[in-house]
């Protein structure tokens, strides 16, 4: 297998696994997300356990993976080298959180929910693409 084919196959396999995890944990149901964020209402802590399960596995596995000098099908690990907590990070994350709490979708579940044929998911993903475009046009640092 060529490295490019390996990367493509790896990405497809990882996407399948990710989508299955989102469906099993019902994170594709926006009500479940809103019930997690609704700490003053009938709180549903499920999302915290989804994250705990994911972080638990990844924290362990990342240690072994990153001990290898490089990934199987690429020359280097593509990790962020940024370390500073700045206003851009915090304001961006706050804007994301605001939108998350309105619709009950973050990017993964929103895209995965396209599989249900939901009109909501389609509108949400179109909105995300528009938001991505607006950021590039209006707010991205000029380089």
């Amino acid at each position: 297998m060529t490295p490019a084919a390996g990367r493509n196959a790896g990405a497809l396999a990882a996407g399948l696994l990710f989508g299955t995890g989102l469906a099993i944990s019902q994170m594709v149901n926006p009500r479940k997300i809103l019930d997690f964020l609704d700490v003053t209402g009938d709180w549903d802590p499920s999302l915290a356990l989804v994250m705990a399960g994911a972080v638990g596995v990844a924290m362990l596995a990342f240690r072994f993976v990153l001990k290898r000098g490089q990934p199987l099908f690429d020359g280097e690990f593509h990790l962020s080298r940024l370390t500073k907590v700045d206003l851009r990070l915090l304001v961006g994350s706050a804007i994301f959180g605001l939108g998350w709490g309105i619709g009950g979708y973050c990017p993964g579940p929103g895209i995965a929910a396209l599989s249900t044929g939901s009109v909501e998911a389609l509108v949400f993903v179109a909105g995300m693409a528009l938001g991505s475009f607006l950021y590039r046009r209006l707010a991205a640092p000029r380089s």
Partner: protein
Amino acid sequence: MANFTPVSALIGGALIGASASLLLWLTGRIAGVSGIMHGALRERGAWRWLFLAGLIAGAGAWLWLAPPAFVARSGFPLPLVLLAGVLVGFGTAQGGGCTSGHGVCGISRLSVRSIAATLTFMVAGMISVFVFRHLLGVAS
């Protein structure tokens, strides 16, 4: 906490962690869905689109094999969904990640930026739900 589903949450979460580990091991990439989506929209290369296609197919296959117990939301105002999408797209582009990139992968690497980002979007999300659900009375 009538709707708490701890077992399926942990199993699903473990699969997401396994997916992130597999992607890092094979391709050296972080399984941050917003980053992959923003990249897919403006960079060349098939792997991002394949990951996103897998995301949809994996979720679809599971929901087909094991039809969910929940009833799909209906009647939620679509203009609000669009607004939510724009804010999520813009905010994740500016903040450099979302629940998966910062929340799962970044925290697993003990990145201070990701921990700060995750706390920020969690608190912002809680305030947002309080305002939209309880103050403005948007039914969801």
